[in-house]
Each structure stands twice: as structure tokens, then as C-alpha cells.
């Protein structure tokens, strides 16, 4: 039977569509069969007949068609032999006219939805009209779904609202419902007239992986942006205190460097390189951290006054987050993924999502582990004999003799030897960590409650502890019809530290080996007649810090219709930090007793922020495509207060933590800043057949950090992906290919990471003079600076072959940042050393990323997954007008990478003088800045290699991190001239000793001789740049899971035993303590630790 289709265009009202899209027109098709009787038109629809006339039935229907909303559907030849109809001038009811026209024949007519009247000859087989709605598992109607009567090829597609109707000849017929990307469903018609169908998505492995992209989620298969992810099972296997540590070496494009081995120390995090030229601001290149939807501070906790010497690079705020409650960490990297975060996405976005409760039976998990850690490496330094030889030789070389102030030669025992590294940093750090988690729920509500306590001691001599207690509460609820859903979580964390005030590592390496005893025979600190500062005196200076963090968020979601929902996210964070650093009299040489008094720094900082984000989300299946639309706004406010006070003159050391016991109290710093931030953002996503994907995001941002007129800016990105493995041609030819996707994205993000109020010319209070509170200028102001721009481009390809045995993702990225927002460093003569401003510089970070995961063995009892990730970053300063007249000439060169040090060209040791020589490049006769050239000091490539092997109950994981890089030589960390009264690494023994000798190390010198100056120049020469590459067995873990039978009797659901090793072994040619922390100077290296533990589920 031939089907006559009436096609109608549906114009959605313009004023609704403008904010959505201008050019999209929706089409839908219907086809109808019918049989029921008369009176199909509404009772009072009338037709106007302009003159008496004689018309064919076809012509009559044309008139009705023109004058009403009704359409007709019939076989073209149906009225061939039907007599004409006579009409009189006037009006006539449409129904009446219809009856008249069809009176002569044996016809049946029926009105279907859409006002279509179907006419057919009577007496044919009785057909039944089946109608219904096709929707997805969330109840969103699917337009364009196909409904076919099995075995006939006859069928229809659903309309805009997912509705269909179809005439079915027989109750025995089977309807097939299908939609691309969804599993087909077959239903027998039977005596039903309404068949509503819910199609289930056809899930491949890639689809099961849901990626959190911040304001929306996307499947791994269909993502257009670059997002890396690690999940709980990876994080849990690492006994680390900081989530950043768990990410190290596991993601492409994410470079994480540990600054120090001191518990709580900071990390340097660069996502796809350094975008900003800010030289001395550690925060400038930090990514944006979002914990459960709430922006989390990236700026260091702590205060210079109280924690400055032990945490030279600050305290990591993320140390407040318990890694074991994290369900996943996603890192957004390219423009497509980050542009929805607009002004703050330039450095990438790190999304941390905490675990949520499971449905089903309530479970109780206990996890306990305990580790022992030591410094991962010690340095070979001179022994007393070698040291004294160096000292004497140095003085002799200078033609001088030991002076009374050369205590190591004139006052101290010449035969003593102490291994200071063992004494001062050779201890064992113990860590105990216990975590308990309750989780449970049903179809509508689930909850999770988790508490943990961690306590870590240090390798320093003495009783130091770093304790952390955390609690997480999470509740999710959805109404039965899923229309309303609510979720809320609170993560609380409290940390107590009482570390010494300084990191003793530098002293441990540089103290002369014959330095005096630490204690006198009476057990008092030994000051050896005031000839040294006893290192343990620093341990008498207590530093205690208490930090508390609360991250709370609530989310409310309401489905207005099945395809349209409104959501409100509200978040609140509070970070507080209180520290006390005591300098008691007893920590000084008693000889100075008269002149020192007990003093204590009290500092406190509090950062509170809230965020309010209303969002609207609309989802639509159209034809073979799917549209996702998101529009939202973000309001954020962050307040920060800080107060540091110095109390002096405590009468007793026991009262030193009581500020009111001080005879004088001075406020040394006080700050109160406000940061406000507002944005309007949107996303349009079009997914055609799961094969062609388009993602458009945009954001308009305003930030209070800029002066009037500079506050607002627009950011946006376009991402597109083509899942070419869905193409028939490829499917039929390349059977081995399970999945293949090409992606590209381009967009602009920004950066406003610069101090608050930089535009404001103002004064701030200082301490008193003449009893009057004084005012000093707060900063150099510049009202003109504005947003930094970062243009990101990316090309990527994902492949999955041989039944997902090998998954590969390769990307190329190129980010160009311009309008550099920096604290422009100024010469001292300007009065201040920096001012906020925009630099005209343009720089590019590009690179290649490769991640591959291979399932080598996949059997029930034996599995082996290996994965590798590799990043090859490159950076280049593209343009910098007038760099030579700027303060940056000293650090950068146009056309060269950013990781540059300008250094002298070494010409080795002069055999006749024994002193380092350097090339006077410009032949000016003096060695100055003009003689320096840029040499690369950054990372050439980095990555990680992991193996997860499972055999029966055993799970073995090994993770290797590797970095190929250049950095500063150990001499730059020691920063003392060989021959001076500071110990040196043993390789200085290769020094020049006599005229004519060829040597790599210059002669020793005991004074500020030309040789000493040459050594300082050497520290600024190419010789001081060495290979600091390393390959580190970062994490090795062996877990045994007891079989269910064994543990059932004990009332357990599961039981696991594990042994883990961290930083077990490092391969490097670097001569210092640790290649990773070498850029931080002489700091405690990351600890090597062995952990054992047990995990039980009840």
C-alpha cells in the first residue's frame, strides 16, 4: 500500500528560540491510517462557499484544507470515479460538507492527531491505531525514534514530543522501537492501543565511564574536550595525605612536583605548562580547584611569620582533603572543557568529587594502615679529615691563615666526626591512618558517613606530629518519580601540627662534620663558648598550627518537564588556620640571656567563600540527534582575613601560648580582603547519531580584582568530535577497530589570579610611632590592568582496538596566552619591587600527550592491565615587544622556552690559577648580564607507567613516575663556596691543586677571594645546570583479598590485607638529596615508606 505523507513544518516560536538557537528548524513526520466514522471536524467549523459551483471531491478537500487546519490523507486514485459535488453560495459546516462529499461512496474517514483526516475505502481489513510515547531512561521524550511493524518495512517516526501513532493490521504484529545508540525493543501489539516505550542506552565500555565536566557530565565516548580522570581505586592504593600526591605521574599534561618532604608541604601544579609570566607568585599558575562543585582555595595556608622557615614554599591547602573519600578527580585541560569556567580556566580545572552512598544493604568499612618512612636518600659529604683538609687548603691558597673567627679550625675538636644527616634528619616517620565508612540507602535515598584520623611523625629528632581528622557526610535523595532530587554534603577536616620551626635539612648537609656535641655532659644544649648556633635550639622553638576546613554544598534539582530541569547549587567553604611560633629564651645561647626575651608570633587566617549557581538544563532528541542546552549563572564571594601578632616579654615559657601574658603585643599584619566574582555561562551540545558531536560553551565574567571599566570579559570555546568508527565504511573494513574518535577544540579562557585591590592607590596601617598609628602606602597601584587571555587549541584522537584490549589517546595542544597579567617587577628605584599590570608578552605552551591502556590478560582468575602516559611539553616566548628595555630581559628570550636560565658560558678551570673561567661574550672586559645566554632548565618529557596485575585473590600494582628534566646543581642549593666553613659534597675533592693541573672543580678558597667570586659566577653559569631527570618507583602495592567463603563466617562481606611501598627506589644522576625537590633548594626530600594495612567491609 502506498502511503501518502503529509509533512508539516513546525516553527517553534522565535522568541523562545533566540537564546537557544536561531537556525534550527525541527522537522517531524507522521503517517496515518484510519477507519472510524464521521463528525471528524469540530462541531462548529464552517466553510465559506463564495459562489454556486460544481466540484470534484478532490477540489472540495482543497477548499477545506485552505480554510481550516484540517489536512487530508488518502490514496491518490480514491475519488476517481466519485461524482462531483454541487455547492451553493454561503456557509456550510465542515462536517456536513465532508459527509456530502463522501456520501456517494463507501468510505470511512478518521481524524488523527495533527488534524489530519484519513479517508479510505470501507471494507478493508480492520486496522488498529496504536499510539504512545518513546522516551529514554530518564523519561525524556525522544523525537525521531523509529517504530516499525516487524517484517513489513511499514512504520513511522516519533514527533517532536516523542509521540507516535501507527495503524497496525494485526494483533499478532510486533513493533520494533529503535534509536541510534539505544538498544532496540520489540513489543507484541496484542489488544493494546497505547504502547509507551522506554529505550535503554546501549552501553559500551566507553559509555559507562561518565566524566564529570563540572557543570555537566559526559560519557567518555562522547566527550569533545580533554579531560583526564583518576578514580578511587587508584587513589586508595596510595597511602598519601594529599590528593595531589595521588595524581603524580598518572595524567598526561598534568605536571605535579613535590616541593618538600615535610608533612603538609606544598606542590607545584602546572596543567599544560606555565601560562603566566608571573615570576615570584606561586599562585599565578595554579589550576582552579573545585571540590563537589565548590571552588576551593589554591593559595597556601600559613603565614610567613609562623610557618615561613619550615614550609618555605607554603602549606598545601589540599592537604585538608582526605584522599580516601575521593570518588574521582577529573582534570579539565583544553578550551572545550575549561571555557565554561571562563576567566579561571586558563590554568586548567581540577574537579574533586567525593564518594556517595551505595544503594542496597548498609555497609560498614574499616581501613587501617601504618607506615614507616625515612628520607629517600642521603648525600655523600666530606668527613672531618677531608673537611679540615679543604679548609686549610682554602686558606693556604689565599695566602692566609686561620683567624680566631674560623671556629671550626681554631676552637673545635679537630677529631670529632658527626654524621649530621643521620642526627638531624635520619629519624623514622611513623604514620597511622584509620578510616571508617558507613554507607547505604534505597532507590530514593542514600547516604555516606565517613570519618578518618591520620597521624604522622617526622624524621627530625624530637616528638613531632602532624595529625588530621576528617569527616564526610553525604546524603542524596530523589523523589519516586525522580522529578525532584536533592543532595548535600559536608566535608570537615581538622589538622594539628607541631613541627619544628625550621627544616633542618640544610644544616644537616652543611654543618661542618667536626661541629661540637649537641649536648653537654649535663644534658644541656651545648653552645661551645658561643662558637655555633646549636641546631637543636631551633627545636626548642615550638610551632603549632591548627587548621580547620569545612566544605559544604547543597544541590537541588527539579524536572519541570521530562526534558527540562532547573538546578541550584549552593556551596560554602571555610578555611581557618591558627598558628603559634614560639621563640623562648631557652632556644638562645645562654650567653645572650640578658638580651633576649621570650617572644611568640600568633597568627590566624580565615577564608570564607560562598557560591550560588542557578542553572537550567534542557535536553531534546531530534531526528537522529540529541541536543543538550545548559544556561547558568554563578555568583561567588570570598572574604579573607588575616592577623599576625607578636607578643614579647612573657615572664615564663609555659605562658608563651597565652597572648595576654605578653608584656607587649604588636600587630605585625592584619588584612581583610573581599573578592567578588560573577558569571553567566552556557553550553550548547549537539550530538548527531553519536557520531558527530558539537559542543559550544561560553561565559561572561566579572571580577572585583580589576578597576572600573576592566571588570567584564567574554570567554568561549567550540569543540567538535567525530566518532569515525560509527561510519559504515569503516565499520565494514576495519573490524579490529572498536572505537575511533577525532576531536578538535578551540577557545579562549582567562585568568584573574592576581592580588585583590591592585587598582587601588591607598595607604594601610603600620605599627605606632610616637604612640600614633601610622600609615604607609599599601602598594603601587595601576587602575588599567585587565584580564589575561589564553587561547587554547587542541587536536586529539582516541582509539580502541581488539575488543578494547588496547585504548590509546593522543593529543596535540597549543595554548597561547597574551595580555599577561603580572606583578611587573620593577627596579628598586621605583620604590616598590612590583606593580600589577598587563605585559604585552605572548607565549605559547604546546605539547604532545599520549596515554595508552592495554588489557594484556583478561581472565577470570588472572588479569593484567598496563598503562602508560607520556607528555612532551614545549614552551616558547612568541613575542615581547621591547623585552630588552623591560625587567624580563634577564629571564627570557624571544623564541626560546620559558623554562630558561640566563647563564655564563663556562670555560672550565684555568690550569694556571685554578679558578673557574667564563666567556666574556661581548668582549667588554667584564663579566656581566650581557654575557649570559639562555639555557633550558625545564622538563623535556614526563609521565608514568603502571601495571595492575590480578591473580586470584592477589592484586599487584606498580606505578613508576619518570621525568626528563634539567635543573640546578647541588652547589646552588648549598650555596656556599668550597673552602668556606660549610660542608660540601665529596665530589669537590676533585679540585684543582697545583699549577698546570686540569680539573673540573676550582681551587678551594677560604676568603672572599677572586676564586669565591668565580664560584658565585659558576652558580650562574651553564655548569650549574645539570640533568635532574629521574625515574621513581613511586608506588608499589600488593593487596590480598580473602575469598568470600572464608570471611562470611566472621560476618564480613570482604577482607583485604595490603602492603605498599612509596618512593621505594629512584634512578637519577642528580648528586643531591632528591631530584624532584631540587628546585626548592635544600629541603627535606620526599620520604621512602613501607605501609601495611587491612581493609574490612561488614
Amino acid at each position, binding site marked *: 500500500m502506498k502511503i501518502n505523507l503529509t509533512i508539516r513544518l513546525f516553527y517553534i*516560536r522565535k522568541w523562545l528560540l533566540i537564546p537557544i538557537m536561531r537556525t534550527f528548524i525541527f522537522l517531524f513526520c507522521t503517517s496515518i491510517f484510519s477507519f472510524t466514522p464521521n463528525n471528524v471536524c469540530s462541531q462548529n467549523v464552517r466553510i465559506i462557499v463564495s459562489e454556486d459551483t460544481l466540484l470534484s471531491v478532490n477540489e472540495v478537500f482543497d477548499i477545506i484544507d485552505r480554510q481550516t487546519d484540517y489536512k487530508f490523507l488518502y490514496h491518490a486514485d480514491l475519488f476517481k470515479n466519485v461524482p462531483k459535488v454541487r455547492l451553493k453560495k454561503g456557509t456550510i459546516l465542515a462536517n456536513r460538507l465532508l459527509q456530502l462529499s463522501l456520501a456517494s461512496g463507501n468510505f470511512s474517514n478518521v481524524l488523527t492527531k495533527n488534524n489530519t483526516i484519513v479517508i479510505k475505502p470501507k471494507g478493508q481489513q480492520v486496522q488498529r491505531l496504536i499510539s504512545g510515547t518513546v522516551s529514554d531512561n530518564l523519561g525524556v521524550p525522544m523525537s525521531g525514534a523509529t517504530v516499525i511493524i516487524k517484517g513489513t518495512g511499514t512504520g513511522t517516526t516519533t514527533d517532536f514530543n516523542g509521540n507516535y501513532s501507527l495503524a497496525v493490521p494485526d494483533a499478532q504484529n510486533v513493533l520494533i522501537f529503535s534509536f541510534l545508540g539505544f538498544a532496540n525493543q520489540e513489543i507484541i501489539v496484542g489488544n493494546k492501543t497505547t504502547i509507551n516505550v522506554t529505550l535503554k542506552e546501549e552501553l559500551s565500555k566507553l559509555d559507562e565511564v561518565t566524566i564529570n565536566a563540572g557543570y555537566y557530565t559526559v560519557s567518555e565516548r562522547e566527550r569533545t574536550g580533554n579531560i583526564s580522570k583518576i578514580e578511587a581505586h587508584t587513589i586508595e592504593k596510595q597511602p598519601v595525605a594529599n590528593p595531589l600526591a595521588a595524581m603524580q605521574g598518572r595524567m598526561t599534561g598534568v605536571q605535579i612536583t613535590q616541593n618538600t618532604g615535610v608533612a603538609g608541604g606544598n606542590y607545584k601544579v602546572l596543567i599544560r605548562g606555565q601560562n603566566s609570566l608571573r615570576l615570584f607568585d606561586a599562585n599565578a599558575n595554579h589550576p582552579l580547584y573545585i571540590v563537589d562543585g565548590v571552588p576551593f582555595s589554591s593559595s597556601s595556608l600559613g603565614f610567613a611569620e609562623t610557618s615561613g622557615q619550615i614550609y618555605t614554599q607554603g602549606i598545601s591547602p589540599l592537604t585538608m582533603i582526605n584522599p580516601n573519600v575521593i570518588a574521582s578527580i577529573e582534570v579539565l585541560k583544553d578550551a572545550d572543557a575549561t571555557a565554561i569556567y571562563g576567566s579561571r580556566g586558563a590554568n586548567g580545572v581540577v574537579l574533586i568529587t567525593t564518594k556517595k552512598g551505595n544503594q542496597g544493604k548498609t555497609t560498614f568499612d574499616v581501613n587501617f594502615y601504618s607506615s614507616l618512612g625515612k628520607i629517600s636518600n642521603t648525600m655523600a659529604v666530606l668527613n672531618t679529615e677531608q673537611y679540615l683538609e679543604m679548609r686549610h687548603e682554602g686558606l693556604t691558597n689565599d695566602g692566609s691563615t686561620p683567624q680566631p673567627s674560623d671556629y671550626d679550625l681554631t676552637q673545635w675538636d679537630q677529631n670529632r666526626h658527626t654524621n649530621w644527616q643521620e642526627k638531624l634528619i635520619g629519624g623514622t616517620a611513623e604514620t597511622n591512618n584509620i578510616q571508617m565508612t558507613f554507607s547505604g540507602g534505597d532507590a530514593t535515598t542514600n547516604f555516606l558517613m565517613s570519618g578518618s584520623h591520620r597521624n604522622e611523625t617526622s624524621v627530625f629528632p624530637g616528638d613531632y606530629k602532624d595529625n588530621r581528622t576528617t569527616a564526610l557526610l553525604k546524603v542524596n535523595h530523589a523523589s519516586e518519580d525522580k522529578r525532584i532530587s536533592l543532595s548535600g554534603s559536608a566535608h570537615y577536616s581538622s589538622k594539628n601540627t607541631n613541627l619544628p620551626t625550621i627544616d633542618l635539612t640544610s644544616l644537616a648537609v652543611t654543618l661542618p662534620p667536626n661541629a661540637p656535641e649537641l649536648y653537654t655532659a649535663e644534658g644541656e644544649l651545648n653552645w661551645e663558648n658561643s662558637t655555633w648556633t646549636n641546631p637543636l635550639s631551633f627545636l626548642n622553638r615550638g610551632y603549632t598550627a591548627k587548621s580547620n576546613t569545612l566544605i559544604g554544598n547543597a544541590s537541588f534539582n527539579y524536572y519541570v518537564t521530562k526534558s527540562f530541569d532547573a538546578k541550584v547549587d549552593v556551596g560554602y567553604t571555610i578555611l581557618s588556620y591558627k598558628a603559634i611560633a614560639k621563640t623562648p629564651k631557652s632556644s638562645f645561647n645562654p650567653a645572650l640571656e640578658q638580651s633576649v626575651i621570650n617572644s611568640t608570633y600568633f597568627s590566624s587566617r580565615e577564608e570564607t567563600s560562598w557560591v550560588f549557581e542557578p542553572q537550567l538544563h534542557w535536553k531534546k532528541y531530534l531526528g537522529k540527534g540529541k541536543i543538550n542546552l545548559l544556561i547558568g549563572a554563578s555568583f561567588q564571594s570570598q572574604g579573607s582575613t588575616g592577623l599576625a601578632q607578636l607578643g614579647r616579654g612573657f615572664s615564663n615559657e609555659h605562658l608563651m601560648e597565652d597572648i595576654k601574658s605578653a608584656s607587649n603585643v604588636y600587630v605585625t599584619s592584619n588584612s581583610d580582603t573581599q573578592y567578588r566574582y560573577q558569571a553567566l555561562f552556557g553550553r550548547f551540545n549537539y550530538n548527531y547519531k553519536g557520531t558527530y558531536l558539537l559542543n559550544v560553551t561560553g561565559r561572561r565574567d566579572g571580577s572585583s580584582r580589576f578597576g572600573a571599566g576592566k571588570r567584564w570579559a567574554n570567554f568561549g570555546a567550540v569543540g567538535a568530535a567525530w566518532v569515525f568508527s560509527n561510519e559504515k565504511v569503516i565499520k565494514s573494513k576495519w573490524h579490529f577497530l572498536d572505537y575511533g574518535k577525532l576531536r578538535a577544540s578551540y577557545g579562549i579562557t582567562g585568568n584573574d589570579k592576581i592580588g585583590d585591590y591592585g587598582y587601588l592607590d591607598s595607604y594601610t596601617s603600620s605599627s605606632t610611632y610616637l604612640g600614633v598609628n*601610622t600609615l604607609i602606602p599599601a602598594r603601587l597601584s595601576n587602575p588599567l590592568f585587565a584580564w589575561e587571555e589564553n587561547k587554547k587549541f587542541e587536536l586529539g584522537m582516541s582509539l580502541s582496538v581488539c575488543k578494547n584490549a588496547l585504548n590509546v589517546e593522543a593529543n596535540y595542544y597549543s595554548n597561547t596566552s597574551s595580555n599577561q597579567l603580572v606583578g611587573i617587577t620593577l627596579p628598586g628605584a621605583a620604590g616598590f619591587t612590583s606593580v600589577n599590570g598587563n605585559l604585552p608578552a605572548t607565549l605559547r605552551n604546546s605539547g604532545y600527550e599520549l596515554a595508552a591502556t592495554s588489557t594484556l590478560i583478561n581472565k577470570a582468575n588472572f588479569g593484567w592491565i598496563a598503562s602508560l602516559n607520556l607528555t612532551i611539553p614545549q614552551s616558547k616566548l612568541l613575542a615581547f615587544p621591547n623585552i630588552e628595555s623591560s625587567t624580563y630581559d634577564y629571564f627570557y628570550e624571544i623564541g626560546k622556552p620559558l623554562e630558561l636560565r640566563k647563564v655564563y658560558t663556562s670555560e672550565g678551570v684555568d690550569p694556571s690559577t685554578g679558578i673557574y673561567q667564563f666567556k666574556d661574550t661581548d668582549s667588554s672586559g667584564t663579566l656581566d648580564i650581557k654575557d649570559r645566554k639562555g639555557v633550558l632548565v625545564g622538563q623535556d618529557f614526563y609521565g608514568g607507567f603502571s601495571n595492575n596485575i590480578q591473580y586470584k585473590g592477589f592484586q599487584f600494582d606498580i606505578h613508576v613516575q619518570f621525568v626528563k628534566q634539567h635543573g640546578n646543581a647541588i652547589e646552588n642549593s648549598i650555596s656556599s663556596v668550597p673552602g668556606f666553613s660549610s660542608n660540601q659534597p665529596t665530589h669537590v675533592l676533585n679540585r684543582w691543586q697545583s699549577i698546570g693541573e686540569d680539573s673540573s672543580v676550582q681551587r678551594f678558597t677560604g676568603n672572599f677571594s677572586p676564586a669565591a667570586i668565580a664560584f658565585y659566577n659558576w652558580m650562574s653559569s651553564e655548569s650549574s645546570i645539570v640533568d635532574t631527570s629521574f625515574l621513581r618507583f613511586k608506588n608499589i602495592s600488593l593487596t590480598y583479598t580473602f575469598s568470600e567463603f572464608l570471611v562470611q563466617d566472621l560476618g564480613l562481606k570482604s577482607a583485604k590485607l595490603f602492603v605498599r611501598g612509596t618512593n621505594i627506589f629512584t634512578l637519577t644522576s642528580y648528586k643531591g638529596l632528591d631530584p624532584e625537590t631540587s628546585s626548592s633548594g635544600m629541603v627535606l626530600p620526599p620520604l621512602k615508606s613501607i605501609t601495611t594495612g587491612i581493609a574490612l567491609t561488614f
Partner: protein
Amino acid sequence: MKSKIVKKISCVILAFVCMSCSDFIVVDSPKTELVKATVFENDDTANAAVLGLYNQMRTSGFASGDLMSVSFVCGLASDELLNYSINPSISQELEQFNKNNLIAANTIIESLWNQSYNFVYQSNAILEGLENESSKVSEEIQSQLTGEAKFIRAFCHFYLVNLFGDVPLVLTTHWDENKKIQRTPSEIVYEQIITDLQESIAILGDNYSHSNDEKVRINKKASQALLARVYLFTNNWISAEQEATHIIDSGIYNLETFENSFLKNNNEAIWQLSSDYGNSSEAYTYFSSGLPANAAFTSELWAAFEIEDQRKTHWVNSSTDGTSQYYFPYKYKAITPQPITEYTTILRLAELYLIRAEARAKQEKLTEALQDVNAIRARAGLIALGSLSKDQLIEAILQEKRVEFFTEWGHRWLDLKRRNVVDDYMQVVKPNSWQTAAQLFPIPESQLTNSASTSNSQNPGY
């Protein structure tokens, strides 16, 4: 139904847009800050800005008397002190001063430079604030504050030009211009110093009523005292004598007993820096009970005192490690922070006698010059000098200044350089390490690297 939803959506979108236009992101100026224009809208806050400058000067470094102060490092650089510091973070840098082998990256050099220019900036900011049309500061206070700011600008430039040679002369707060400023020839810097001081003298009063009768703010006499010194340094003998006479004859100041001469607000002091925190740092800097804490006298300085010199007993202390005797300055005695008895003294009357003596000697007024030197010697319990030739007298004045002003404000270092005898003396004390070029400190590396206009102009020898 559908149109209802549509309406709802549009309402929400509209609401977003409206909110976007709001002033949500405009924040008030922080509660801890005062906008510059407001500062100079009233007497009290303008006054507080000037006090802020004094307060910053005494806090640390430059004028504080601590290890990073002009007094200490010039003592090391000249023939006064030997470095004994064991403070690991600073001893090697101090050693560079002591061996006259500085490197441009020395952080003490950098901090002296940056601090001085920060004070210059603050002075300029105050001057600009007071000159601004919106300033509502009363006329009397405006003169007072302007005079003080001009003095401090001159004072900082004076030390900069003496320690570093030609230095950028900075007279505005515009960082965009100041970053490009070149090293200005010393003569021009001196001209500006003189102009600033003269203007300050013209508008300042003679008493200390503006500082609660404490000598911790600049008055006319302090300006004249510095101007007398500047004239001496620029070989303007007549004016130097005149300015010195203004002060000596004013009757406001008298030479004090040794016990009192560094006490707060003593009769000899012309300008001191007070501290609400505790005693000044000098006593603590040198204090020692065994081996020297940070520095001790060179044998040459110890030998420079005549046997009867009272200053040797009152202003010098000693300690011993059992075998050797170490001498250290004991002008300031208060090593405990409280109670506050001593202030850092920057200008005191004795200097004016010696300035005038030298100025007079240069003008061949030998008898009068001798009287001035003998006034200082008399207090020291030394016999009056008899008649001397002009050169002998000038030599005697230098000697007198050496033992009167040791470890104070780099007098010795500046005098040796000014009189071109630095090589003669330094070769005696440091035969191995002294080089003529070392008489100027290097321009700090950060200044050179951060300013294209000075990058090529390091002092010779560095």
C-alpha cells in the same frame, strides 16, 4: 503548558541578565586601607603617613642599627670592624663587606637600595598628596609635613649617592617613569639634596613641639645639620661653617656626658628615631660575653684611641674567650628591649663641631678650627691640641671623627672616601683584599636586571 514553560524560562534568563548588570562585583575598598586621596584630606591621617615613614625607617635595615644597617655594614667595609657573625643566613654576605669583595647579588646591598628608594617613594607620595588640590590639610601642618618629607628624601639620596656613586634621582611616584630613570650624576643629586634641605629649612620650625617634644621628628635644626654636612661633602666651606654655627649657637643643644649621649632626647641629640617596640638594635648587635657576637674592633681602631681617651672607657666594651681580648662598641648599652631608654641617634651636636672645624680649617681659620676640635677633645678628657699646620689639623679632625663617630652612620667610611684617603688607610687594614674600586658598593643586581636604563651602568670593578 508549553507556553507556560517558555515564560518561565524567559523569566529566569531575564533574571540572570539583570543580575549580571548589577554591582555585585564592585567591592568596597578594604577595611584595612585608606584611599590615598582620603589620607590627605585631614591633618591626622596626613600626619600618620609621615610618621609611617619614620616608623619604617627604624624598623629594620637602613637606619635601624642592626646587622643590615648603614652603620654596621659601613663599619665592616671600612677599617672599623671585623666580622664574627655566625648567623648562617647572613654571615657570608657580611663577610663580603668586610673583605670589600661585594657581589652585585648581595641581598644586604639590595635591601639598602630598595629601602632607601622606598623611603624616597613615600616622601614623594606625601609631597604629591599635600600638593594635590583635594588636600585639606591645614597650612601649618602642610608646611611641617612638607619640610619633613623633603628632608627624608634628601637624607636617603645623600646616603645613596655616598654608598653607590651616581644614583637615580627620584622625585615622583610615577613607577612608569621611575623604572626608566637613569643614574644621575652625583653633582645633580647633591644639587637636589641642597634644594630639598633649603626648602625644608625655610618652612620648618626650630622646636620639637610637633613630636611631643621628643627629638624623633625633623625640625629646622636637623635640616640645617644635614645641610652643613652636605656643604662639607661638596667642599662649600663657607656655607658648611654657617649652617654648623646656626646649630652650635642656637643654644638648644649641648654636648652631653658620655653616659647620656645616646639616651633618648638627650641634650646633644638633634634627630633620633624612636621605637614604641623596645630599645634600638645597636647594643644588641654588638653585645657579647665571650667571643664577639657579630663583630669586634679592628686592632687599628683600638689603637687609634689615645690612652686617656674617656670614650675608650665609656663607649667601648670588651670580652674574652680566655686567650684573646675583643673590643666592641658600647655607645648603646640597653640590650634588653624594655624599658626603653635609648633611641637610634642619627644627628648629634658633636658632628657639627667637627664639620665646622674642618670647614674653618679649609678656610685657613685655624685657631677657630682648633677650638672646635678641642671642644670635642675636652669632653673626651683629652688635652687640647696645640697649634698645628692646616694639613695636620685636618688630619687631626679626621682622627677625632674616627674615635668620636666610630660605627655611627658610616661616618668613617664616608670621610675616608670623601677625602680621597680611603686607599691609604684600607691598604693598611686589608692589604690582601683592598681594591680602589671597592669604595663604591655595586649597584644591586635586581636594579640592573629590572631596569634597562641602568642595566649597563654597574660601578667599575663589579
